[in-house]
Each structure stands twice: as structure tokens, then as C-alpha cells.
């Protein structure tokens, strides 16, 4: 699709909120799901006849199932705190991209049908009937939200626009008006086992190639095993790690870490996907179905641990939801046979699931990994906190471990590390612009514009601190940055996977790299001794 839009200019004072430009991105909508995409997820193929009524019915159903939705729709006082916090608002100046205004697209309908004030005084409280205009507006603007939760950090009641956009998408799916990108991909993962639709034999061949590459490089018999029964660890990683750059380099990094740690591990062809786009469309039942493939694989292979590769929303689903959805975790009730079946199998002495960064960090803490940090000396690295890792999950056993652990891993293998503007990292991190089911070419304009705040913060450290490397821990962030960095005149190759930095500096026992270092280290040791 031809890009018929202007990349936003870097703002002189990004902290000053933009003046509003009404309907600036009203023309943006993703492709609508085809009937077969819809039906394979249990949704009607196309817009049902009495969809207005059905939409309200579904809203009522969700209100009775999700306390958060109910409380968030009632509690907003329109204080304005969130209005300048969304990256899509900052990149487009469209008022409907202000979090509260986005929520109001749905709240106005909620008020009309579910509140006294909206039923009897609709004008007074801005309540609206459900109609075609509203539906089109929902479809457009609820697909201009990446569910990054930045607004919820700043809301005095913690109102999370992500929950509201998930509900809106679930309602639209339920009346036959779903999004092609998410629903088509969910069909693939549910039938083939990964978002790509990559069948087992093709996956196996790809993994062998990567393993050979590592073997050529290190001189060690490093493997990337698939479907190995009785392995200790099942690695669940986004399928982008099998085909996209720089994701692949991250995968090779994990393989090196597992090999060096001497831990047996395996991927699964049945569950060769960490991503779970069901979260983006707010569908609990689909989210459970996709997560159950992982449960099934874990039971089938008899693994003791489940480790998750670099992916943002997938880590949210894994960390925050897997225990709920499928029992991957601990602490099930004694009567909860479903969860206990898996929990009895998993090793209770380590967190289940574990993030690959937690795994590597633990090995570093125990002194089990050695790095040649000079291998990364040509880099000055900054780190992009992924929204779902930063604001919807955790690593380690302390609040904020999700910020400390990836940074500690990077610093263990790089000498030069710089953080971006404090207002753009950690819990205040900006979305890459492509999360939440927006990583599709039909939404390129909003993706590029939404990346503006992140690109501005990056520009600052590139210009002032000499940063030339952007490390990410999310498959979507990586794919998005690979696409949008050039729009902002950054070189694409400045983007790396976090475990790429690990892999490129890890000194594996007996490797070519270790041998090459020995004379150098010997010389250094002799020099020290002479002094």
C-alpha cells in the first residue's frame, strides 16, 4: 500500500501538548475480516441483521463479566489527566485519540442503554444511540489504540483504555465486524500452531539452519531442538523469532544461553507461538484456546519448566493470564484438578512461566555466564521498554523487576548503555506504535505517526549521547521498528534483539571465541604480573 501521508516532524517541545486537529485520522480503518476469518473463531461471518441490538446485548454480557469495564465506564470524571498521554494523540493531534475521548466512543453508548441519566437525559451526559456512524467510528478509533496502558498509569482511578478497546473489539467481532489482521492470524495459530501458518517440517528445517549457523560460528554442537520429549524446558517464543530480523538473532542468543547453561530444552511444533492475539480482540475464550495449545504441549512433552522468549503482549498473557487460563503457574486450589494436573508436573522451585531474560539474569547472578563485553564495544545501546512488559507484567520477585532485569542483562554484556528520557521509559514508556493488533500494512499511517514520541526520545540520545543501537524485547516492537525507523531517518540495523547482544558476547565454553580470547587474556595476565 502506497504511503500517502507525511511522517510527523520532530517537535521542538514534545512535552507541550499538541493543539487539536479534529478528524485528523478519521479516515484510518484496518481491513475487515472475511467471513472465513470470522467463523473459524466462532464469530458471525458478516454484520448480522439486527446488529445494533446484538451489540447492546453483548455490551450487557461483558458488563456482567468484567468488573473493570463496569467501573471504568462509570468512574471517569473527565479531569483531562490522560488527554496528552497517548502516543497516537501525540502523533496525530486527533482529539479522538485522547484516551478519554476514545473511551467516550463506547461510554456514550453505555450511558444511553445502561444508565438512568443516559436513558432520560442523553444530551446532558453526551449519550448516543448505537448506529452505523458510531460503529464506523468504533472500528476506526478502537483500531488506533495499541492497548499499551500508558493512560492507565496517569489516571487517578486507573481507568485502562485497553480494557475498553478490547471490549469494543469483542462487541464488533460478536456482530460480525472483526478486523482481518488479528482474526486471520488467530485462525492460523489455532489450526497450525503459529501465527505464520508454518508447518512442523518447515519449522524443523529452519531451526536446523540456525543451529548450523551457530555451530559454524562457535565450533560447538549447539542445537535448537523441536518436540523433544522429556526435555527440562519448553521454550515458547513468538514465531517471528523463526523468520524475521533481528528476531532470529535473539533466538540464536537463547540457544547459546541454554547450551552454555547445560539445560535440555525444546520448542514445540504444536505450540510454536508465544503470541496470543486473542488478547487484542478481548476474547477470553479464544485466548484460552490458544494458550491451551501450550498447556497440551507441556503435558505431552513432560517438561519441568516453561520459558517464554522475547515478546511483549505474549509475556503479559503468559505472566498475568496463563495460570488463570491454563494453570501454567502455581497455587491452584486442592480441588482444582485441571490446573493441578499441570502444576504437579512443573518444577515448583522456579517461577512458572519464566521470561528468558529472567533465566539469563539468574545465570549471570550465579556467575554461570561469561561475556566478552568488548564484542559489543562498537555499540552504544539504549533499551526500549515494551508496554506490555512494563505496565502489565513483571520479571523477578520485586515490583519493577521488568525494568531492572533486561537492563542488567544488557549491561552484563555491553560496556556502553544509556537510558532515554525518564518520561519515555519504564512505566512511562511509549508504545512502539505497532502493538495491540495494529502491526499490519493497512494501518501503516497510524503506526508511523504513533511512533513519534518514541522516535523523539531516541533522537535525543542518538544526537546527544552517541546511541547507535536500540535493543528491544518484543517481537512486535522489533517488526514495527524495522519498518518505521527509516521513516524517521534512522538506520534499520540499529535495531537489535536483547538476546542478540547476549549471544554476540557470550563466551561459550570450548568455543572458537573462547580460544581466540585465550592468548589475549594470557597476554593481559602476564602484563599484570609484570607490573
Amino acid at each position: 500500500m502506497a504511503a500517502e501521508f507525511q511522517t510527523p516532524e520532530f517537535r521542538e517541545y514534545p512535552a507541550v501538548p499538541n493543539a487539536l486537529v479534529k478528524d485528523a485520522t478519521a479516515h484510518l480503518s484496518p481491513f475487515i475480516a472475511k467471513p472465513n476469518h470470522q467463523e473459524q473463531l466462532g464469530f458471525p461471518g458478516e454484520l448480522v441483521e439486527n446488529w445494533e441490538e446484538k451489540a447492546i446485548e453483548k455490551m450487557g454480557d461483558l458488563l456482567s463479566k468484567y468488573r473493570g469495564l463496569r467501573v471504568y465506564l462509570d468512574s471517569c470524571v473527565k479531569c483531562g489527566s490522560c488527554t496528552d498521554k497517548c502516543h497516537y494523540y501525540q502523533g496525530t493531534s486527533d482529539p479522538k485519540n485522547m484516551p478519554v475521548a476514545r473511551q467516550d466512543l463506547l461510554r456514550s453508548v453505555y450511558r444511553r442503554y445502561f444508565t438512568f441519566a443516559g436513558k432520560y437525559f442523553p444530551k446532558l451526559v453526551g449519550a448516543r444511540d448505537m448506529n452505523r456512524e458510531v460503529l464506523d467510528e468504533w472500528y476506526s478509533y478502537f483500531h488506533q489504540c495499541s492497548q499499551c496502558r500508558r493512560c492507565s498509569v496517569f489516571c487517578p482511578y486507573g481507568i485502562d483504555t485497553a480494557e475498553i478497546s478490547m471490549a469494543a473489539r469483542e462487541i464488533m467481532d460478536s456482530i460480525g465486524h472483526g478486523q482481518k489482521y488479528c482474526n486471520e492470524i488467530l485462525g492460523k495459530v489455532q489450526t497450525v500452531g503459529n501465527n505464520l501458518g508454518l508447518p512442523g517440517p518447515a519449522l524443523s528445517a529452519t531451526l536446523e539452519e540456525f543451529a548450523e549457523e551457530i555451530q559454524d560460528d562457535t565450533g560447538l554442537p549447539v542445537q535448537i531442538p523441536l518436540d523433544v520429549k522429556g526435555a527440562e524446558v519448553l521454550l515458547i517464543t513468538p514465531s517471528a523469532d523463526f523468520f524475521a530480523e533481528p528476531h532470529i538473532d535473539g533466538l540464536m542468543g537463547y540457544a547459546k544461553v541454554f547450551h552454555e547453561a547445560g539445560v535440555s530444552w525444546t520448542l514445540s511444533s504444536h505450540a510454536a507461538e508465544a503470541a496470543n492475539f486473542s488478547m487484542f480482540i478481548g476474547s477470553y475464550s479464544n485466548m484460552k484456546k490458544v494458550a491451551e495449545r501450550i498447556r497440551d504441549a507441556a503435558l505431552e512433552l513432560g517438561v519441568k519448566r516453561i520459558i517464554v522468549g522475547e515478546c511483549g503482549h505474549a509475556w503479559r498473557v503468559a505472566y498475568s493470564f496463563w495460570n488463570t487460563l491454563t494453570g501454567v503457574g502455581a497455587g491452584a486450589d486442592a480441588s482444582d484438578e485441571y490446573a493441578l494436573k499441570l502444576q504437579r508436573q512443573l518444577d515448583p522451585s522456579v517461577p512458572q512461566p519464566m521470561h528468558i531474560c529472567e533465566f539469563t539474569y539468574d545465570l549471570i547472578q550465579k556467575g554461570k555466564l561469561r561475556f566478552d563485553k568488548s564484542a559489543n564495544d562498537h555499540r552504544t545501546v539504549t533499551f526500549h521498554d515494551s508496554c506490555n512488559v512494563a505496565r502489565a507484567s513483571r520479571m523477578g520477585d520485586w515490583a519493577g523487576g521488568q525494568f531492572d532485569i533486561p537492563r542488567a542483562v544488557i549491561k552484563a554484556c555491553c560496556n556502553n548503555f544509556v537510558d532515554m528520557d525518564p518520561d519515555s521509559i519504564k512505566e512511562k514508556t511509549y508504545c512502539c506504535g505497532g502493538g495491540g493488533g495494529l502491526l499490519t500494512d493497512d494501518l501503516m499511517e497510524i503506526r508511523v505517526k504513533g511512533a513519534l514520541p518514541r522516535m523523539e526520545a531516541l533522537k535525543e540520545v542518538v544526537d546527544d549521547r552517541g546511541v547507535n543501537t536500540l535493543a528491544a524485547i518484543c517481537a512486535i516492537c522489533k517488526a514495527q521498528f524495522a519498518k518505521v525507523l527509516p521513516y524517521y531517518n534512522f538506520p534499520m540495523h540499529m535495531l537489535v534483539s536483547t538476546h542478540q547482544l547476549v549471544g554476540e558476547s557470550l563466551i561459550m565454553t570450548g568455543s572458537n571465541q573462547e580460544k581466540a580470547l585465550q592468548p589475549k587474556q594470557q597476554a593481559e595476565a602476564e602484563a599484570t604480573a609484570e607490573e
Partner: protein
Amino acid sequence: MSVLYALLFYVATVLLIAGLVYKIRQYWITPAPLKIPTTPAPTTRGGVVLRMAREVVLFESLFKSNKWIWLFGYMFHVGLALVLLRHFRYFVDTTSFIWSWVPLISPIGKYAAFALVIGLLGLWARRILVDRIRYISSPSDHLMLALLVGIGSSGMLMTYVVHTDIIAVKVFFMGLMRFSIQPLPTDPLLLLHLGLVALLMIIFPLSKLLHAPGVFFSPSRNQVDNPREKRHIAAWAAKLDK
């Protein structure tokens, strides 16, 4: 007039309590099927209590976000709290020991009214002047501010300019609590003040004022961050386990 206002306050009180009980019960029984605290979040129940306390007492998240909204919002809410405490003197016997703090706090409440009204005016000015906030405002948002400013300023006028017979007001309200209707002074300002208060009580459970109970039920703020340690499952979701 006394009978009319007595009835008004009975009706307003019943609607306020019934409405709040209904909404709080609704929040209480609606499940939160997934763990969605905004992280970093406390990993213990005690930590959550502290987080909520900081949110409710200090408006922590708002402070992080926008210092002007925080300042005006905080002035209004703290002012309101102190003014409400001062109003206890109309409803309790201040000679009894447990209420002996009421006369002590009264002088503070007298001046807190300024914070209350100035805070409201600051918020209202932002609602009109800042284009983003103007955009998200409905007529009801302005009317709510008008109502609160009306209550605050009519009250201040009675405190500082046109005094009313507060002893008689106290007799009226103490009477209401014993279901005995005593004469209410008929100063227009007092009637306006009380009429607006009754209106506020009635619309409380029907409006955005539900943010007051709502904040305590917000899953992004009240959940413990321990999903790996404890399986969290709602009844409707458990049915999907097979």
C-alpha cells in the same frame, strides 16, 4: 417549607443510600476474571492497601500526570473533606465525648471552604480554556461544577456575609434524625444551599461522582501482582476448564 425540605432530605437520603448500595453491590458481585493491575504493582495485599491509600489520600497518579489538575483537584477534595467534617456539628451532640473533635475542626473547615471553591473554579477554568478538556466535556460536566460552586459559595455567603440561624438549622436536622419536623429558617440562601445539597445527593449514584466508590474497585489499582503464585479464576471462567 419545613415539611417540604424535610421530605426532600428524606427522599434524597434514601436515594443516595439505595443508589450507592446498588452500585457498590454491582461492583462487588461483578467478577474480575483476569489479573490486570497496572504494573509495577504491589506483590502483597498490604502493599495494595498502601497503593490505594496513596491514590485516595494523595492522588498519586494524578500528581504524576498533571500538576495543575492535581493542585486544583486536591484543593477541592481536601477543602470538601474539611467542610464536611465541620458540618457534623449540625447532626451530632457536640457535648458528648466522641464528637468533641467537631468544634475543634470547625474553624479549619471555615477557611477550607476557600480551597474548595478556588479548586473548583480552577478546574472549571481548565475545562473552558484548555482545548483538550473542553473537547471531552459534556453539559453535565459543567453543570456538576456549577452545582458544587453553588453549594460552596452559598455556604460561604452564610458563613461570612448573610448569617442564618444555625441553631435552628441544627434543631431542624437533629429533628429529622428523630423523624420530628422542626421549623427550618427560611432565608433564601439557606434554602438554596440545602436544595442544591439535596440535588447533589440525588444525582451522586447516577453520575460520574461514582468515581468515589469506583476507585476502590478498580482492578488496575486494587489487584495484587501475584499471578504466577496463585491461580486467579472467576466462576464463569472456571466453567471453561475441561
